[in-house]
């Protein structure tokens, strides 16, 4: 996936990739990555868990704007099945420029 991401960034489009295998991202070096230590087939979490999926999408978009160093891999703080997302504060309020 990282190779595709690099190809897209190369034509001038800013990209963010979600990774569930940190090792691969470290080797392929995509421009920007958020990492979750979650099982295969579940990069955005569990089926029907809307707050969880929303949190991952919003954190990914935040990282897309806030990462300034090429190749950065940001470890998201969400632990598999250990978060309720009730207290999750979305970064919507942050004006993403």
């Amino acid at each position: 996936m990282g190779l595709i991401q690099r190809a897209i960034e190369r034509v001038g489009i800013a990209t963010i990739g979600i990774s569930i295998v940190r090792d691969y991202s470290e080797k392929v070096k995509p421009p920007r990555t958020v990492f979750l230590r979650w099982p295969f087939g579940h990069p955005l979490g569990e089926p029907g868990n809307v707050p969880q999926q929303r949190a991952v999408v919003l954190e990914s978009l935040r990282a897309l704007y806030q990462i300034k160093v090429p190749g950065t891999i940001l470890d998201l703080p969400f632990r598999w099945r250990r978060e309720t997302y009730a207290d999750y504060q979305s970064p919507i309020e942050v004006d993403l420029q």
Partner: protein
Amino acid sequence: MARLKNRFLARLTTRFPALAQRFIAAYQPQETEGAIPWVQPAVSLRQAKLALVTTSGIHHRNQLPFDMGDVDGDPSYRVLNGEELFYDFQITHDYYDHTDAEKDPNIIFPLDRLRELVSEGVLGRLAQTHYAFMGHIDGRHIATLLDKTAREVAERLKADEVDLVLLTPA
């Protein structure tokens, strides 16, 4: 037979992540050298047009499935119509257990979550066209991906005036 075995292993590695670690260790992508491609987002999120690109093997039912018979994978891509997904979709990818993704494809392709952000005014708009690959591309197909298909998709996104791309694996 090989496909059944792959699907069985995919179920095991999804249920038992420790096993997955062994598969991860067995497959090592080539280290990429040189400068990392980089551009800053050109517009703010609330003005941006975003497209999804996934390696989860999701596609429309009437499209040719990915070739699961080739051990080096299938470097081709499918053009997805965001307005029709998820009314018709299937997932062709034997290397992960997509039982949960069949129930809710947003866990591999967060289209509904992005639609919500557009309706809330957080995100400018969604592209109508998105792209799917299958992961697990190896051997001779890496060159095809790099020289042809990934480049084609990048050019198509550019032509569609997409500002941002979110990539999801499986």
